[in-house]
């Protein structure tokens, strides 16, 4: 896992008003990379810059400073899009088209031949479970169905990189489970996935690495397992035993005495949700603090 699929260098986006005055710094000097074959999560509260980052990577916005390379090409080079699939947060699909027409339309945009286009469309419609509704216009679809056809259009070109903006948003628990399962399948097929989400349990479930943004600054960045590790405490895991007060008092001895067996002994982890809230709270408490590459702890600027 050493090939960088995405790399940003001091990527900055400042929005200006009509008179050219600075209105908002949406992203400040972002330095991250995404490796081939991983699921990378972008986290942050509303307005933190995660959607701006995605839009910059896709060429929907142009950087004010810095640059980003996607699949080795600048973001302004539309040729990179040959290998990208994108599912936006809201369904931006044309509601007057049917599911089949939608996939056919986006397939044409990838310049895919007719027969191949039809084959892929049929395959994807089956994969997202919309065979029975393939002839209906999308205006008649529910939010969940639109999300499914949205994902199908993102995969019509068999992309190397899939970018998903809030993929589980608006889905019921079963739909969310299905979506997460599909994202894992994409990784297993060798695709790289970048997703941003508010649902922290989803990110914890499926992401290999994450970046946490707050008010345009990178606050945390790295492997999920490493970031969630609490180095000041030890964790002891035991099984086939009932935990009593006595047991707590004399842990290691008691386990042995009561005939149990020690499964693991190491650092316990907190939940991603707790960690996320802690990071955001710290960021609010110390304005100007930001994550610097190769540093384990966030530094004050």
């Amino acid at each position, binding site marked *: 896992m050493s090939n960088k699929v995405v790399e940003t260098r001091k990527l900055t986006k400042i929005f200006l008003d009509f008179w050219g005055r600075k209105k908002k710094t949406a992203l400040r000097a972002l330095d991250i990379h995404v490796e081939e074959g991983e699921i990378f999560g972008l986290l942050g509260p509303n307005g933190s810059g995660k959607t701006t980052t995605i839009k910059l990577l896709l060429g929907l916005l142009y950087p004010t400073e810095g640059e980003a390379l996607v699949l080795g090409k600048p973001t302004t080079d539309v040729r990179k899009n*040959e290998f990208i699939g994108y599912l936006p947060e809201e369904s931006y699909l044309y509601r007057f088209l049917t599911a089949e027409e939608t996939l056919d339309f986006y397939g044409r*945009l990838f310049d895919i031949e007719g027969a191949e286009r039809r084959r892929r469309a049929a395959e994807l419609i089956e994969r997202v479970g919309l065979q029975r509704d393939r002839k209906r216009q999308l205006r008649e679809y529910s939010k969940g169905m639109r999300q499914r056809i949205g994902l199908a259009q993102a995969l019509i070109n068999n992309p190397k990189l899939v970018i998903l903006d809030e993929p589980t948003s608006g889905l019921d628990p079963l739909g969310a489970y299905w979506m997460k399962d599909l994202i894992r399948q994409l990784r297993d097929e060798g695709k790289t996935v970048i997703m941003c989400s508010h649902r922290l349990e989803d990110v914890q479930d499926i992401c290999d690495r994450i970046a946490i943004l707050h008010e345009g600054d990178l606050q945390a960045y790295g492997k999920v397992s490493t970031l969630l590790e609490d180095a000041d405490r030890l964790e002891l895991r035991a099984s086939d035993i009932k935990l009593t007060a006595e047991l707590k008092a004399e842990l290691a001895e008691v386990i042995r005495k009561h005939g149990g067996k020690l499964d693991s002994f190491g650092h316990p982890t907190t939940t991603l949700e707790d960690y996320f809230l802690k990071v955001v709270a710290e960021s609010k408490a110390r304005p100007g603090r930001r994550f610097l590459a190769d540093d384990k702890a966030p530094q004050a600027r």
Partner: protein
Amino acid sequence: MTTILPWAALSLERDPLELAQIVSLPTVSNYLLTVGALCSLCVFLWLLRGGFGSVGRLFGGARSMVLALLALALPMFLLDIASIFALFRPLFLPADAVISANAPLVPRPEWTNIPLAISGLASILLVAAPFVANLPRLSLRRILAIANLSFKEAIRKRVLYAFTGLLLIVLFGSWFIPSKPTDELRTYVSVVFYAMTVVLMLVGALLAASGLPADIRTQSLYLIVTKPVERVEILLGRLTGTMALMTLVLLALTGAGLLYIIRGVSPDAAEESLKAREPLFGILAFKNTSSEAKGDNVGREWEYRGYISGPTQGPSGLVTPQASWTYATVPAYLGSRDKVQAEFTFDIYRTTKGFENRGVGIGLVITTRNHDPEELRKAREKNPGLTPEQVATDHGFFQPAGSVTFFDYSTGSVAVPGGLFANAQKGDPQKPALTVTVTCKESTQYVGMARYDFYFRADDARAGAQPLRFAGNFLLASFALWLRLLLVISVTLVMSTELSTVISLLMGMVLMMLAHVQEFVRELVEGKSAGGGPLENIKRIIDNSVAAKPLEDTALNTLIQQSDKVVREVLGGLARFLPEVDRLAYYPEYVGNGFAIGGGDLAGNAIVTVFYILPWLLLGYHLLRWREVAGPT
């Protein structure tokens, strides 16, 4: 002997275009100067905003080429700067100085045209370079996919309902439009084309103005630009889709209108106008009048026609003013006909009342380049029984027997022996093949003539109604309407790449309206309009003052009048970029009057329209390329 025909001749205030005019050096150089001026301004503004960095990032040959083009474009940019300063030039001119709408803003010698045109071409190439570099990546499949999407969008959003109202006008309009049988077809054609023009242009402009802004608003464009789609493909796709839909509607309406006219028109009207006459026009010049190009001026407000009087006493005896049409060539096939019909519609300017129900007598003589009066005289002496046909064939001379008279508001005709046209095929090709000379025989009347008031019929004048030829002509007029649609849809679409639907639609409409009132804009620029310039007129409206009354000599009025001069210069500058739509709008007149639309004229107008649209599309390409599709979140 003249025959009076019931139809009127065409009044063409602008000469029909000829292909040779369009592909001539002056036209091309003028185009390069106008478009190049805009392009060079854009290029250098882009350089000032940091474009040098992009040039620096180019490699080898590409960089050298861009630098060379920049060096070539520099003179045009300097001219642009000078022109911008020249806009304020009228402030330093005397109050009564004349501003010309056509003269260059910066006076310069004629020889500078070609070098500056080359500089303009370099500027255009610089602006077009990114687009040209993109060309190999364009995919017809993607363009057609977006076109198909626009098409489906309009169909499924039920835009076509807008046309059903139009169909009602076409089908039942004649119930409400009373017309004389002689005007019947003319009225039908006018109503059909007027209704088609208004509805098609409005709906076309609305579709063009709403597509892209709606995609940006609903963010559907996010999904398109994140595919390997070049921005220009979006523009071309939208244009193709909208045009495809409008073409289908235009074809359907043309078919319905045509069917209705052909089946509904009365036999008399069909006999008169359900045809496509092919007029052969010559070049008009006057002799023994105050102006060789314009004849005498009788003080009519409409300066379309020049006038000749009857014989007048000059310093050295009796002088006969005459108007003559010369034909460099005439078609050889006319020589094989028994008779070729000449038709004319002249205007009478009376200095005395004249006689009731009696027209004005004119002298009409048609000669070929081989005519020798002396030879004819000898031949007549030798054989007094020479027929007019023999004289025409052998001596290249024809004069109608008896008197030729004509009436106001009607077309006269004379049958000319075909032999005259056979004779005109021979002789020195450097001389005009045929000359038609007209004189006025009445000393107290003036006869007014314009170039298009006299013509020979290249088609068979004896044929009755010709529905097929009429239908072909009708289709050509529909094609002219299609060109206008292309124009308005392209311009509105380009505006919609940056502006909202409403603003794009309004600006597209304003541009088309200004294009239709170009003459008025020119008058405004040249200070010929009543009540002074735009600002002065606004003041007059506020003050409720009469246009003819001079403004009082106050500081405010002086400021207004001086500012008006700058406004007029700016308007004059902008007027150069207005499209030529009047010519395209005139074609239904040809059809209604039963005259064939000239193929060369229409082709010329098509070329002019396409070349007008190209810089707009280039602008749209750059606007869409630079545009950030997404906004802050």
